[in-house]
């Protein structure tokens, strides 16, 4: 059933994609043009030409990039809301809706973290991956807007999925930071950083940041799992039944608990911690992709 609201939603999503594209180009520009070619003698050391970064030159571009990202976020928000209105339910009844809402959460997590940390070095990656997600959603996963089956009509579902999507956004951000750590560590082991990587914070900061992000949302994820259990109890008569989706939510929970223990009580840092963080994040992604697409069980309600 395709209503005006559903069409409106699609326009919003398309315009958001346009803005994310501009944001991506601006971020890429900024990254490229902050590199200042050596001009004067002061930038030569011996015979070696040393390139430096000059963010003053590109500050304007960087601001445009972030502004576009914020506008894209708002348009996507409008798209997600109008999609919800068109279907008369919260917009995560199928994979298409889940993807656009997930993209919204990821952008939101990035923008929220941006208020506290200067993460603009991540902007290229964030805008690109959001574009990719939205593109896949629109082209491969699109389904007409449809009403929810009765079991999904529940306040607890809204609470559960909201908490899960927000946690997912932050977990993914932590994963991206941990992956940057691993990449940068390899680069540094071979010598000094190339110019374009100089703006990325030090390894220590990245290491701390991914931990902070995980520690920040772990309670929310715990809450999401509990809210899911409360919902399952009222819909299916049991609060836990080892359905594949539940099982993977549990695995993700245990993996992050192991990560927090490894850091806080055993003292893991650096590479090992980053790998564990990425592993834990992958269990979250796996749950989303594998269980929704190929899995069986009560949660595969979506017709994709």
């Amino acid at each position, binding site marked *: 059933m395709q209503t005006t609201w559903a069409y409106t939603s699609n326009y919003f999503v398309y315009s958001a994609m346009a803005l994310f594209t501009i944001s991506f180009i601006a971020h890429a520009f900024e990254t490229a043009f902050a590199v200042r070619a050596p001009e004067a003698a002061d930038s030569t050391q011996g015979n070696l030409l040393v390139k430096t970064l000059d963010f003053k030159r590109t500050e304007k571009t960087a601001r445009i990039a972030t502004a576009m990202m914020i506008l894209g976020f708002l348009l996507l928000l409008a798209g997600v809301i109008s999609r919800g209105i068109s279907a008369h339910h919260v917009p995560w009844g199928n994979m298409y809706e889940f993807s656009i809402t997930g993209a919204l959460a990821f952008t939101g997590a990035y923008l929220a973290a941006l208020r506290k940390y200067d993460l603009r070095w991540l902007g290229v990656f964030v805008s690109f991956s959001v574009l990719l997600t939205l593109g896949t959603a629109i082209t491969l996963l699109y389904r007409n807007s449809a009403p929810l089956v*009765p079991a999904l009509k529940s306040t607890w579902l809204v609470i559960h999925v909201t908490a899960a999507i927000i946690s997912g956004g932050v977990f993914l951000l932590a994963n991206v930071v941990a992956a940057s750590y691993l990449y940068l560590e390899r680069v540094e082991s071979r010598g000094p950083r190339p110019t374009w990587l100089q703006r990325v914070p030090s390894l220590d900061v990245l290491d701390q940041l991914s931990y902070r992000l995980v520690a920040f949302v772990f309670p929310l994820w715990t809450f999401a799992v509990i809210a899911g259990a409360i919902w399952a109890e009222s819909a299916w008569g049991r609060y836990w039944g080892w359905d594949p989706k539940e099982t993977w939510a549990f695995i993700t929970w245990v993996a992050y608990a192991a990560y927090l*223990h490894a850091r806080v009580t055993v003292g893991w840092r650096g590479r090992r911690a980053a790998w564990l963080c990425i592993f834990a994040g992958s269990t979250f992604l796996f749950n989303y992709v594998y269980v929704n697409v190929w899995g069986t069980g009560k949660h595969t309600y979506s017709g994709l």
Partner: protein
Amino acid sequence: MSNQVEIPELGFIGLLRYAWRQLTSMRTALILLMMMGFGAIPGSLIPQRITNPIAVRDFITANPHLAQWYERLSLFDVYGSPWFSAIYILLFISLIGCVLPRSFEHYKAMRAQPPATPKNLSRLEEHQTFSGDDQALEKARKWFKANRFRIREEHDSISAEKGFLRETGNLLFHLSLILVLVGISFGSLFGMKGEAIVNVGERFINLPTSYDTLTFGKLTSENSLSPFEIKVDKFVAQYDPKTNAPKDYTAWVTVTDNGKTSKEIIKVNKPLTFGNTRVYLQANGYSPVVTVRDSEGNVALQGPVPFLPQDGNLRSIGAIKVPDAQPQVGFVGSFMPTNSRTPAQGAISIFPELLDPKLLFSIWKGDLGLDSGIPQSVYRLDTAKLTKVGLGSIKPGETFTYPEGSITLENVVPWINLQVVEDPGKKYALIGGILAVLGLLSSLYGRRRRIWIRVTTHGVEVAGLAKNGAPGLKTEIQNFVTAIKGEN
């Protein structure tokens, strides 16, 4: 084995103590935690008996050899398997062994005074000196009190500490995990779960004989069922006309409990509650109401016969068994709420509501095999000792006549599947879950820190220490210093 001298020397008690220390060490806990995560994986990839018994049966038929190995490793029942249980039992012993002693220590530490002010404050974080006199101590005491620090006063210094909530929260979190586990075990030992199909217009009485399936927890007494009755007055299922997807299910019922009668509504997300027992609306289907007569016109069977839905449009199959006819008669039936035909599939249903209902059947006579003692599915006919005598189809109000008698489709009533679950442990699991989140919040967001101030003839000295590198100490000390330096 003569070269293994170390272990015998420990002695039996020593060995036990050594094993206990190993088990309750953080490294072991971490390994167990990871093992639990990895151990849960196969259960989501291999079909499980508790969630999908049919898939397990199909898997065994398709891969008999592999299935044997799976069976040996309990891979069709991972979450009840000895090895999975071993992991979580060890984990929780380890948890108790680690958390209980820490709780006592923490309790003692909370009641004790903060440690004395260190001699050399300049080695600590955020060390500052400025001029001032004994008045500074007085102001500091006020500031600490106002900011709810615990303090220890000495003649020239104050040692203040705050942020015990972090450790309290951490301990609360781990203790509540134990509570969750206790709740889960309690529920599975003392609970029960059953399902019953009830036709609209009929009454369900909560007795073991009313159930189609019923399982009790290991320690549940079988006559513990609470004595309620539910009469199903009406059931309405709404479907989306474009997608055929269900939109809403509602059952109107009359409940009799402890002599009191009331009208209630059951929906998919709104079960009925009787103490620890809840009644869920779990599935629905149709029961053709038939009258079967013998060749002389005597009624041999009359009433609704539940049929099992096979797809989203409620194409249903079932068996009508007439043991009282001479000879015995049985029908293998398909019921279509909205009948249609395609060349490829034959009869199908194209909508789940009763728009154009039709019952199609084959007629069999002979021995139904009901006296053999082997339990039979009520939805299938055992045709081993039967012979087929005809085929037919009828709509409501129609009668089909065959040499041995006739069958009339009077009308069609919906049935609902009531799932009755008693779980006396779930409230503990829920309380545990809530406490766990609260504990986590104060553990992960809490900051434990100390601040010291000392006044000497040289002036005032201030320093601090943040445990676990908690952020924000700098700002806090800045506020503290501003407060002390502030107007008199």
